[in-house]
């Protein structure tokens, strides 16, 4: 190799090392922290206990988030706190990393009903089945007196189309086992170790994950893998829209048989000019959730009216952020406040009392 080429290669290598190091520092300072995701056999992943990180939320931008000893977006659970605990389950709507913790509906409920300890058991990407698994994981640690499950339209999609496999007990509607679906997180890739050390790898891997997946999917002619029953069901049985309600009822029954249960439905309302709003599927999602809740005697709360009223009064949609688009995506601080106030009556109706 000529000396000039060698010199150039050396300079290039040195430059790349310096550049990557500078980027790593800048990423940590201004964007995200190294991944705090740890693999979890049942749920795909959880957040590392007692971790504080900077994250990138798709709709609310770069934010700081801290997680308690259980890996939840919540304050520490104190052993000497004997208030009845209400565990709130759901996906990113409940996890609520887009708003400051005191501003999410669980934080607000905690202030409004100080006799109860509300525990945020939400995590991005969960669906009703995995929420049930989250309950099984947290129940011994949290010992909840009641459960609130918050369902949104995304849960129906997640449940029916994300490739989960569920085993039903023979001669029973109960879910006996659940096989993890592919988890779209870097915890599933070989990068996990590197991501835990490097903010840059975390940031770039999360950014490139979707296009890379789509690219590979294009090559492999990726086929959607809808949820299927297994073992106790005929082979190849798949869920359809019509299965949503009975499956939901089956999951709720598993929970309601052990806990007081409230189900909240948050539909994808379209917010239109002049304070008008419309629910795209004509309210079918809420009806399905309500019927499933009624079937097991759980309390039911439809968030649509309170969110629509808030929009009529303020002219500002209760979901969406300046970073993305008002009226779409997760609930914003106003939406969380409306949800919290809407839920209060249902919570009071549970009649939970402080243990003496």
């Amino acid at each position: 190799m000529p000396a000039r080429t060698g010199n150039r290669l050396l300079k290039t290598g040195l430059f790349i090392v310096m550049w990557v190091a500078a980027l790593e520092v800048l990423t940590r300072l201004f964007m995200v922290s190294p991944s705090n995701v740890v693999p979890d056999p049942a749920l795909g992943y959880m957040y590392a206990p007692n971790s504080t990180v900077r994250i990138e939320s798709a709709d609310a931008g770069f934010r700081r988030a801290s997680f308690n000893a259980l890996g939840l977006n919540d304050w520490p659970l104190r052993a000497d706190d004997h208030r009845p605990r209400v565990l709130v389950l759901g996906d990113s709507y409940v996890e609520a990393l887009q708003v400051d913790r005191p501003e999410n509906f669980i934080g607000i409920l905690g202030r409004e009903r100080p006799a109860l300890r509300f525990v945020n058991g939400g995590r991005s990407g969960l669906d009703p089945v995995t929420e049930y698994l989250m309950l099984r994981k947290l129940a011994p640690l949290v010992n909840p007196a009641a459960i609130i499950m918050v369902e949104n339209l995304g849960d129906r999609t997640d449940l029916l189309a994300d490739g989960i496999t569920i085993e039903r007990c023979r001669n029973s509607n109960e879910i006996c086992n659940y096989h993890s679906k592919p988890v779209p997180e870097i915890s599933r890739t070989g990068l996990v170790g590197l991501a835990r050390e490097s903010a840059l790898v975390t940031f770039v891997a999360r950014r490139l994950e979707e296009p890379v997946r789509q690219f590979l999917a294009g090559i492999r002619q990726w086929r959607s893998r809808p949820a299927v029953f297994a073992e106790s069901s005929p082979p190849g049985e798949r869920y359809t829209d019509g299965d949503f309600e009975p499956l939901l009822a089956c999951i709720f029954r598993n929970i309601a048989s052990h806990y007081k249960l409230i189900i909240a439905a948050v539909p994808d309302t379209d917010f239109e000019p002049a304070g008008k709003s419309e629910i795209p599927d004509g309210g079918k999602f809420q009806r399905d959730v309500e019927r499933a809740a009624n079937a097991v005697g759980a309390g039911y709360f439809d968030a649509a009216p309170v969110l629509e009223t808030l929009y009529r009064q303020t002219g500002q949609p209760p979901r969406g952020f300046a970073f993305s688009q008002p009226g779409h995506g997760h609930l914003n601080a106003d939406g969380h406040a409306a949800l919290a106030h809407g839920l209060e009556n249902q919570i009071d109706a549970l009649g939970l009392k402080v243990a003496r």
Partner: protein
Amino acid sequence: MIFTSLPFVIFFSLLYVLLFAIRNDIARRWILLLASFFFYGYWNPWYLLLIWAVTGWSWLLGLYISAAPTPRRKKRGVAIGVTLSLLALAIFKYTGFFADNVSAVFGWRMPAFLHDIVLPVGISFYTFHSISYYVDVYRGQVAPARSLRDYALYIAFFPQLVAGPIVRASQFLPQLLRPIALTRAGFVAGIRLVLAGAVQKLLLADQVSPFVDQVYAHPALYSGATEWLAAVAYAMQIFGDFSGYTLMAIGLARILGFELPENFRMPYISASIVEFWRRWHITLSFFLRDYLYISLGGNRSGFLRTQANVFVTMVLGGLWHGASWNFVVWGFLHGTAIVWNHVWKLWPAPILGRFALWRMFRWPVCWTLTFLFVTLAWIPFRAVHFDTTLLLLQRMFTLADGVRWYHTPTLFTLAGFVLWHIAYLNNLRLNLRHCVDEYWVYATEVASLVTLLVMFAPLETSPFIYFQF
């Protein structure tokens, strides 16, 4: 196959390697021509028939114009050529528009197929290339291309084929008189331009396009202030989109050994509308000036006639952008503004110039008025329906109530855009070449641009706006 897509990156890389490996100049020209046809046919192979037809007749007419013994015959050749090129443009671009208007005015039912004619990508550009060829040959500014292959390469050269810059025959054909040279200097400069163009497209235009699209799609939903922000954002978007595309085109051409003309020179620092058109889409401005305005008589027949020529040129320039009254309105507004600019220079400006206060504030006042005008004139350009334009203007000027949305990425982009312009105006350039080795400067530039693209470019890029023209 847009420049910012993976298929294009693969296509261009393979092409470059092939051209680099093959040293024979004739073979390189053929490869470049076939690659250009492949690039164009990638959208729709049927479009190739049209570009071949335009290439064929314009090449023959160029030879005819050059060989014609009398000026009258030469002129006739030009007239035939221009008519044929404009006819192709009219058929493919304006038939539906014409049918719509005839239906609206006379109530006639026009055949459905008139509305189904598909607009071939880039037709507005390569028909202009052919017109430039006839006129340049007629004026003796360029020798007619003896080789059909070389002429076809001028028409179809893929970096500038679908959205410009509008390259004149007299700028491109002489470059084919020497062998195609792939040089290191060309590669280095070209990569820099391509990356800078990609940054303008992906980090400037595409960052704000979701916001702009949403506000223009629901003009009654958002507050007047949000709509002002969207209007400014669109001004940034169309600049980033089009300037980014042409920078990439110039850079790609440079890598392949060709020089294309500059198309944008910081248009938003203009303090008059005349200056704006010297900085915005420069190749179109000069094309319209040299081939339309001057043909109409230019400034040879008095002030009023000159202004009429300017006005007609701008209205036709507006119509060139698209077959819609919105574009005519946009051209009308710019034509009116240029005429007003000329009147202003004639009368109030010299009087105001006597006042020190005016001289002190002249630039900021003129800049503000120019930017405001250009931004507001983009509204009919962007809005699909004229009703949308009127509704937006009404809501903006009454600061109507509605959903307030100050899109964070747009605000960041706007801040960066403003800083960039301030730096340009103050000639603030980070010139490290005196103290650091050239290698490190280049490496830092390229690494910075690549990093910005990898870390912040949207994952889904929107098509280039000027492709529709």
